[in-house]
């Protein structure tokens, strides 16, 4: 063999002339391999394939003119993006090719962004500079960022859009859940604009817990919160019976009595008549707007702003419930529950009604002997270990800092830092899904508890977390669409105190502060007439007949009503126009008649509103049979002209009404002066 090689060597290179020839030939072959490699490259293959694809089409000439030649590149220096995706994805902007579904020739769905300003990897991830399919889409040793699957593609939008975006429901839901399920109470999550996400789950303070409930109930609750209420937010920590026993022992031991010198309640427990009266009072007070109960069919009926009350009688002590109904703020200054100003009899009636909502099975097998000091000590250690104070206020225990990993850049977490369990695919979204779905699959000793989430919810949370990337945190400020930040608006003076006591902001927003369950009151003073407002506060009557959620009656005194009415009428005024600019005399009966025709004809307002309760049926907007006694003419006029300028996001369509039409309709609507009482009767008759 060696001889053969030696003879071949000699034949080729023995003679200098021949050696020169051989070396030249080899060089030529090597040089030729470069254009060959280029000619047979993947991207050229796709460009050729595309050319064949468009050749037979009617618009072939235009398409061929648009077709790129060679490697394409989008460069966005301020974002550090080099993007060659359009080399193969040649038809992204060709709307005439919408019928082509196969990649890489699929057309991009219309989005409000210019491709050449954003590139592809900004939203879809992957490696922009790569020119082969494998390197561009998948993880390699050098690159850790595979392309995002369609399942989580909304997370790309979430890097810049920090607020609610209509086109990304999954991302919106995910962010909502991170706050609603209390994830951000243990995990720090700083948005790209530096705002730290706050929990919205409202876990109760445990400072006076022994006043509120028994150790037995606490045991059953901590052991399995969803057994008490399937909609409970509190997760299952999977604790042993002994651990739960010790935690309850500690919680009772730390509990401080609320107002130790307060007189004991004089109200007697309810009777059967109370029970019936309680049903009515519960209904009249619209408790179901915020609290759900389970009906006979097992369905939850009612809102979710407050806890479910199906088994409240098993949980609450009657004395506590009475004190709570009298004034919830005494027990928990941060509660969203309003101070109803119930009298003693009403408190007793409601207490009796609620205490009858029991589940005797829940505590049937819970027997706890008196706690020993060791158990209390162990309970305290467990409360520290599981970070209970991250969510609940507990005497003598501070909210732990940096208790769980920071999630601000979770979407860029390097694979090298993840220990995947055996059956989880090695991708970042799969890791997050697996972690949220079953945290302890990553190690039985992990502290993260088991949440009760649907697959859709897990998907949404994963999408929201995938949006928390390095790119989001470091990109230029002008790329960010800032998030919605609730204002710190606080009404002043006596009216302000009253509004806080009534927890108006739990449902209404004013000047950017407050809930969205009820109408925004920022311009309420311009909108309504003083007398109507005072009557309404005395006895709120719904304007929308079909709504389940309604304004409760707060049993306000005349003085309180005066304070509130004066304040609203004086302070909550729009600067856009004068509320008295259209005097009653300016609206003639002839105009009103013309308005009636417009109402029922040209604008068909009756399809959404009711003026004549016998003939009209529209359910979407408020009933209008008492507009003349409720609203100001100027408000009605400007509302008809441009509703969204007075209340952003209103469903009332802007009809671009002429001044004449708007005035005529205003005249017609202002002539509707049915008093509240008679309108109530009309509804009852219906």
């Amino acid at each position, binding site marked *: 063999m060696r001889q053969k090689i030696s003879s071949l060597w000699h034949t080729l290179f023995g003679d200098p002339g021949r050696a020169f020839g051989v070396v030249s030939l080899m060089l030529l072959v090597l040089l030729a391999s470069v254009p060959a490699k280029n000619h047979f490259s993947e991207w050229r293959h796709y460009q050729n394939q595309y050319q064949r694809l468009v050749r037979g089409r009617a618009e072939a000439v235009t398409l061929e003119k648009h077709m790129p030649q060679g490697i394409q590149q989008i460069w966005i220096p301020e974002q550090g993006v080099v993007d060659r995706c359009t080399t193969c994805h040649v038809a992204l902007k060709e709307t005439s090719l*919408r*019928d082509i*579904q*196969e990649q890489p020739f*699929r057309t991009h*769905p*219309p*989005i*409000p962004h210019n491709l050449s300003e954003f590139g592809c990897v900004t939203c879809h991830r992957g490696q922009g500079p790569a020119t082969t399919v494998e390197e561009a889409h998948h993880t390699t040793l050098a690159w850790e960022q595979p392309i995002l*699957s*369609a*399942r*989580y*593609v*909304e997370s790309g939008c979430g890097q810049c859009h920090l607020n609610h975006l*209509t*086109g*990304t*429901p*999954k991302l919106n839901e995910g962010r909502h859940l991170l706050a609603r399920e209390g994830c951000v109470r243990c995990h720090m999550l700083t948005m790209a604009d530096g705002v730290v996400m706050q929990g919205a789950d409202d876990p109760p303070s445990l400072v006076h817990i022994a006043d509120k409930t028994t150790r037995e109930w606490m045991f059953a609750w901590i052991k399995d919160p969803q057994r008490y209420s399937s909609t409970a937010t509190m997760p299952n920590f999977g604790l042993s019976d002994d651990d739960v026993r010790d935690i309850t022992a500690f919680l009772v031991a730390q509990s401080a009595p609320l107002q130790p010198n307060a007189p004991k309640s004089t109200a007697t427990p309810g009777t059967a008549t109370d029970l019936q009266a309680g049903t009515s009072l519960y209904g009249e007070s619209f408790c179901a707007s915020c609290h759900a109960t389970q009906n006979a069919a097992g369905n939850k009926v009612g809102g979710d702003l407050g806890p479910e009350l199906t088994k409240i009688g098993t949980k609450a002590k009657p004395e506590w419930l009475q004190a709570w109904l009298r004034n919830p703020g005494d027990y928990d200054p941060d509660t969203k529950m309003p101070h109803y100003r119930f009298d003693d009899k009403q408190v007793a009636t409601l207490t009796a009604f609620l205490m009858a909502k029991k589940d005797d099975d829940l505590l049937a097998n819970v027997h706890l002997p008196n706690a020993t000091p060791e158990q209390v000590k162990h309970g305290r250690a467990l409360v520290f270990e599981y970070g209970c104070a991250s969510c609940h206020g507990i005497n003598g225990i501070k909210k732990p800092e940096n208790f769980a990993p920071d999630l601000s850049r979770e979407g860029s977490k390097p694979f090298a830092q993840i220990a995947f369990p055996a059956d989880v695919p090695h991708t970042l979204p799969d890791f997050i899904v697996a972690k949220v779905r079953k945290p302890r699959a990553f190690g039985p000793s992990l502290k993260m508890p088991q949440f009760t989430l649907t*697959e*859709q919810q897990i*998907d949404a949370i994963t999408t929201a977390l995938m949006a928390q990337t390095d790119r989001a945190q470091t990109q230029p400020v002008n790329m960010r669409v800032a998030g919605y930040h609730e204002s710190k608006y606080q009404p002043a003076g006596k009216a302000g105190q009253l509004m806080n006591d009534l927890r108006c902001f739990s449902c209404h927003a004013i000047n950017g502060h407050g809930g969205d369950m009820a109408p925004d009151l920022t311009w309420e003073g311009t909108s309504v007439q003083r007398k109507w407002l005072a009557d309404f506060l005395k006895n709120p009557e719904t304007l929308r007949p*079909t*709504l*389940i959620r309604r304004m409760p009656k707060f049993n306000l005194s005349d003085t309180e009503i005066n304070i509130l009415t004066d304040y609203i009428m004086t302070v909550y005024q729009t600067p856009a126009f004068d509320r008295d600019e259209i005097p009653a005399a300016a609206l003639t009966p002839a105009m009103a008649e013309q308005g009636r025709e417009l109402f029922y*004809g*040209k*604008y*068909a307002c009756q*399809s*959404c509103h009711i003026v004549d309760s016998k003939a009209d*049926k*529209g*359910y*979407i907007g408020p009933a209008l049979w008492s507009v003349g006694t409720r609203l100001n003419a100027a408000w009605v006029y400007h509302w008809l002209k441009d509703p*969204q300028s007075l209340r952003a996001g209103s*469903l009332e*369509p*802007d*009809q*671009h009404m002429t001044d004449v039409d708007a005035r005529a309709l205003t005249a017609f609507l202002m002539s509707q002066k049915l008093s509240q009482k008679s309108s109530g009767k009309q509804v009852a008759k219906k």
Partner: protein
Amino acid sequence: MKPWITCVIVATALVISCTHKSKGPAQPTATAHGTAIVESSGGKQVAGVGSPLDQPVVVQVNDKDNNPVPGAPVRFSGPAETVFTPAEGVTDSSGQFSTNIYLGGSSGRYRLTASTWDSSGKRIDVQLEEVALGYQQMLGHELNEEYCARCHDSESTALRVSNHDNLGANARPFTEGDPFNKLSDADLTDLIAHGGVALGRSAEMPPWGYTLTNSDIAALVSYIRAVSDPPYRTKGVVYVQK
């Protein structure tokens, strides 16, 4: 043994094993067999691309007398990227098999197949169809929920009471393809932007052109086209490829 004989033996073995595999995957282990498979629920659902359908898809296996057959084999299949959890199994005590479905990354209609096998091993299929919405259609879907569904959907939800039955005119649900498919994109856009009067229809349909943007309306049109049944056909309905 001569090398070529070894080669022939190896090649024959390869051919036999390949032929065996090409018969397709074996049916799931079953204890009974039916003669028909029907859709019970879960067809015609709408979800974003790559997202799970809200409801599981349920099929039922029946015998020749239309009685449900427990323990019969069922397998789901569909275009690439569609994920079934689980993809196969046997029917439960009421003869039904239920699966949760994640649609793939392309917008359009997904034709899914649920199969069972009769006692002779013959495959019986039922076709189902689901709709995956792309970005623009999803935007339209959200706008529909906010603005249109109150009148165009006769079902009320906890947060949205339907106004459908209170109207003089019949506001058709967007899934009813026939009336909407007759309208061109331009007409549909006009109808939304300028209201019913613009096309000689009821004034109960208000003009939305001053409240919604042009791209909002385009998104709504795109959504209406996506969910229409029968499908809206311009250049042929786009089915996701296998």
